[in-house]
């Protein structure tokens, strides 16, 4: 037996098997993180892309003629918003919907479908490949919302599954045991306790303190302290994404905001710090709940492995701030930041898609 024989462990003739599938070339796995603010997708073809979760439709025939498009996405939609009916279909990470069908449910559902279709299109699938996707959704998304996301996705892929976002982050990093995941999105922050089995409801907490909370708080503080400054939510969001930080070692943050039409510099260092810090106490409180309801013998292990993921985790100093708050409220703690905050959820979902047995995909087709 040569060294290379070690590699030949599979006897299945895959090219024979391939004939039995309804498409004859390849399987494309996609991991999708469908978020309030951004939608990220990674594929087994090496493609990865993030688009902002805005979807816009021309308001009338004139706009349609001007824009030359039936639907616009992301930053382009935002830029042309005056000519568009604009949707951000996933409020707090799930489809805007209530039992009475309010909040233009049908419009949001259509926008979600188009957004998923666009995300998949951006992953450059080939027409001759089967497309199997796993979509990460918030841990506490209602059955209604899960069904709606499935309905939205089913039109664009051959088979689709949902899984909890924080779980997919942990799975992607092979951290399946004794770890707490914090996944900070725009609409929600998901906390999840991993202990070697599938996390159930008691292992997961969804908080409504996330990126949007920071934006709102920052807007509020700026209005209060600099009433003459003019700004929009979108401007505040951009400022946060550029300068977002907590802690004492923060560099001065000076931004130009218009006052009576004239760009005027404002030092908003303290406001940024205060706004970004608003999510820290509720997160640590949520972690405390998950830790205190865990086996006391293993609680210290959980506290020592807290994984910080999601777009919101890019706030400078957030890991240290949460660690410090954990020490203050829970006695100890160690927060580790993921390397790829934007793609952590999508990468994990991709790994789940890869590891899912063929018969499971077939049954869900």
């Amino acid at each position, binding site marked *: 037996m*040569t*060294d*290379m024989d*070690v*590699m*030949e*462990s*599979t*006897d*299945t*003739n*895959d*090219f024979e*098997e*391939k004939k039995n*599938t309804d498409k004859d*070339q*390849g*399987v*494309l*796995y996609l991991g999708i993180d469908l978020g309030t603010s951004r939608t990220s997708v990674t*594929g*087994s*073809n*090496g*493609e990865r892309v993030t688009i902002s979760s805005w979807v816009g439709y021309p308001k009338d025939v004139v706009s349609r*003629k001007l824009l*030359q498009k039936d639907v616009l996405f992301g930053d382009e939609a935002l830029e042309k918003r005056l000519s568009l009916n604009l949707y951000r279909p996933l409020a707090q990470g799930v489809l805007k919907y209530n039992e009475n069908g309010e909040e233009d449910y049908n419009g949001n559902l259509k926008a979600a479908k188009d957004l998923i279709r666009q995300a998949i299109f951006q992953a*450059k*699938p*080939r*027409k*001759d*490949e089967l497309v*199997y996707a796993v979509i990460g959704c918030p841990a506490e998304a209602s*059955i209604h919302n*899960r*069904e709606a996301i*499935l*309905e939205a996705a089913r039109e664009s892929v051959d088979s689709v*599954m*949902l*899984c909890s976002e924080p779980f997919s982050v942990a*799975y992607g990093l*092979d951290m*399946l*045991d004794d770890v707490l995941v914090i996944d900070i999105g725009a609409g929600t922050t998901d906390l999840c306790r991993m202990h*070697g*089995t*599938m996390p159930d409801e008691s292992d997961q907490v969804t908080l409504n303190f996330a990126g949007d909370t920071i934006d709102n708080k920052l807007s509020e503080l700026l209005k209060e302290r600099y009433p003459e400054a003019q700004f929009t939510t979108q401007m505040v969001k951009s400022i946060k994404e550029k300068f977002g930080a907590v802690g004492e070692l923060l560099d001065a943050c000076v931004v130009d905001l218009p006052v009576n039409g004239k760009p005027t510099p404002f030092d908003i260092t303290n406001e940024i710090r205060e706004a970004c810090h608003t999510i820290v106490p509720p997160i640590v409180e949520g972690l405390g709940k998950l830790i205190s309801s865990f086996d006391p013998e293993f609680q210290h292990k959980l506290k020592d492995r807290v994984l910080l993921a999601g777009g919101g985790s890019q706030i400078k100093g957030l890991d240290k701030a949460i660690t410090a708050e954990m020490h203050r409220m829970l006695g100890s703690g160690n927060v580790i930041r993921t390397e790829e905050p934007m793609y952590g959820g999508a990468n994990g979902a991709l790994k*789940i898609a*890869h*590891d*899912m*047995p*063929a018969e*499971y*995909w077939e*049954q*869900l087709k």
Partner: protein
Amino acid sequence: MFGLGKQERDSSEAQATAEAPKDQTAPVTQAGGQRLNLVGRDQFARAVSAAVRHGIETHFRGAPPEHIEAAISTAKSSMVHLLRKDSKAVRGLPKAAFLKEVQESKAKIEAEREAARRELEAMLGQLGSRREEVGQMKANLVEESRITGMEQDYELSQRISALFDASGNSPELEAVREQVTALMMQQMHAERDKVIEAQLSEHRREVTKFERRISKLTSSLELTEEELKKIAAAKGIDAGVASIYRNVQGLNAGDDDFETKKELMSSIFNANLELQKGQAAAT
């Protein structure tokens, strides 16, 4: 997933064809390979690690563990680099089918454009002749009205004169007769114009309808042109990027957490199956 032809297994080329589509595997089988065996990337990486470790421990007994680990790490990263580099050759190969499809859709749009253009030309011709017809009709009606109008005007003035003559002649009555005649003529001319206008309006409506249809057809042609431009610009369109997997994967039996992951996959599947059943029941 990576595949190795039995007779090609020692060549780096065979490693690089791991994810090749059917046509690329042909040389392997033609060269005498009976079968193409496939292994997962993780398993491949582990095998490389094991092979490097085995080689070092056999030939360099007593080598420090950190040196062994460093050699394994270098071998693994080199392997991944080489495979990624070579796997690019697989991407986008069967582009011909995609381009054929683009060509077909272009031909279809061109045919639609041609039909629309012909229709537009025919309508523009009809519109021209309609406009001419309306113009001619108006001229005829005006002329007709002028001729018959002169007779009617004369007859009316005669009748009015006869009425006034019967009432006797006086300078006051003469002035009244002139005023009455002028008023009656004015009224009659207005009525006559109304009749002409009514006769023309039906034809004008038809012309307007034509004009509307033409404008619609023109904008549709513009859109078609736009589509064609897009297709022309799309000559370099990527047919998509091929997945590195030729078939459905699943968990690797050699995975360290195989049992745990198997259970997790099963849980995710069951939750989704339940969700799907619930959806089906609801519909």
